[in-house]
């Protein structure tokens, strides 16, 4: 009975879809973090994560093990994202809202080109410490492998950490205050500029985790590896509401599962389109996303 459930086609699709969905949710979470902190939609989120993933994971060529390489990616991800905020985003606060969009698009182009110049377009396949062969149940494959279980676990762990940081620590309180009400926070003596930089840094580190986890997928590590994931992450963030971390996670998982089902039962080409159609429909009905409260901000 249990074996039947574990190897059922739909259950398998849901499990596999969840594995991809949490990663989409992770990318969406980065976008939400940056958006909430600085009202900038980071169009270079994908390439930034890709870039630092390369920096870390290529250390495996120099005999670093997977965990060390991943840690380097995350640390560099933090620093790189924080520096980006200081150097090219800070000058654009209080400017027309298209200016930061355009600058981050420039960053997108630049980073993908540099990555391709340095590491070429040929994908690399970092050796994962987990097998990608699905668990078996009475001789039939289930929807999960040790690798995908690790991917889900890593993504959920990071999300939990971020949630704890933001909701239950003093630093988190200051980070949220700086994002919600920068002027009032300044008047209370909070170093808002520094906290916004920190917010970008955290988003960069989370992005690096996403990058590392995605580089273990069959597509491997390539300069454009996060393009599709960024689009899906954006769709998830927009559907959930750019202000809602929980919305990002939930809609990420929903999108992952829906796409997996479409892949399996219909045609893989349709999956992306269905995601876009979903986005258009949701935005038509609720332009602020599903999970954003319709409350008045700032009193």
């Amino acid at each position: 009975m249990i074996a039947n459930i574990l190897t059922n086609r739909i259950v398998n699709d849901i499990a596999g879809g969840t594995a991809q969905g949490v990663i989409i949710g992770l990318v969406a979470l980065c976008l939400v973090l940056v958006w909430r902190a600085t009202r900038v939609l980071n169009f270079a989120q994908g390439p930034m994560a890709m870039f630092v993933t390369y920096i870390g994971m290529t250390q495996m060529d120099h005999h670093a093990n997977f965990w060390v390489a991943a840690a380097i990616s995350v640390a560099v991800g933090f620093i790189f994202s924080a520096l980006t905020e200081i150097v090219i985003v800070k000058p654009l606060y209080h400017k027309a809202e298209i200016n930061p969009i355009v600058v981050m698009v420039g960053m997108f182009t630049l980073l993908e080109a540099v990555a391709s110049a340095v590491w070429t377009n040929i994908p690399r396949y970092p050796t994962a410490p987990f097998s990608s062969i699905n668990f078996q149940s009475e001789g039939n494959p289930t929807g999960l492998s040790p690798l995908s279980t690790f991917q889900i676990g890593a993504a959920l762990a990071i999300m939990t950490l971020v949630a704890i940081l933001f909701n239950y620590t003093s630093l988190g309180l200051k980070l949220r205050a700086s994002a919600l009400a920068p002027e009032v926070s300044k008047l209370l003596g909070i170093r808002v500029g520094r906290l916004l930089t920190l917010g970008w840094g955290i988003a960069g580190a989370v992005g690096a985790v996403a990058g590392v986890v995605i580089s273990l997928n069959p597509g491997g590590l390539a300069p454009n590896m996060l393009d599709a994931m960024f689009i899906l992450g954006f769709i998830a963030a927009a559907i959930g509401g750019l202000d809602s971390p929980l919305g990002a996670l939930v809609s990420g998982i929903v999108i992952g599962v829906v796409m997996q089902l479409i892949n399996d039962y219909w045609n893989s080409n349709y999956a992306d389109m269905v995601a876009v159609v979903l986005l258009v429909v949701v935005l038509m009905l609720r332009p602020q996303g599903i999970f954003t409260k319709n409350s008045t901000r700032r009193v």
Partner: protein
Amino acid sequence: MISISHLSVAYGAIVALDDVSIEAPTGAITAVLGANGAGKTTLLRTISGLVKPRSGSITANGHALIGERPDTIARLGIAHVPEGRGVIAEFTVEENLRLGALGAKTNVTAGLEEQYTLFPVLKERRKQYAAQLSGGERQMLALGRAMIANPQILLLDEPSLGLAPLVTQDIMNTIKTLCANSGLTVILVEQNAKSALKISDYAAVLHVGKSIAVRPAAEVAADESLRSYYLGMAE
């Protein structure tokens, strides 16, 4: 003691403050009165570093404030309760208070306890979101959040705004008590001149960006000729 001298502020071509000089003595409440657009809010925003002046100087307890960042000024012991109170609606009462202590780097637990004794209503509602509070409660929260930083100077921007007369009276009395108990220097910007003058020691009148008088509050209250300035043209 906070002293403002020859302060001029302009937004582009519009002059908001023109050669304003005001002194607010230590341990006293100095009211700044004036009609809408007289530059009262600008004055407070310049003191706390949110607005850069064109010229002039501001010193508070021996520190020159001009050119410092708002958060630095706040950590010098100058608390600014902005117009509309600046309570963060998405935060609970307690989170708002904690934020005040975190910004000023004062002891959170002790501070919370102190403010809860001062404002028992805040203790009752500490888990509620600030958005759910009434206007008077919000003003108390804003005061508590400012006081948790143990400031020496308190800048208040229109605390009576949108409050019923009785609540206003209540808030004004609280301010008076705070000042008397802790030797706090207060600059109280108000459009509601009557309530403000009742609790103030000194009063200054701003009229279209110029300061007209800094005199004991009772004198200002008695001076018929000043009344038209701070009551506006209609009266």
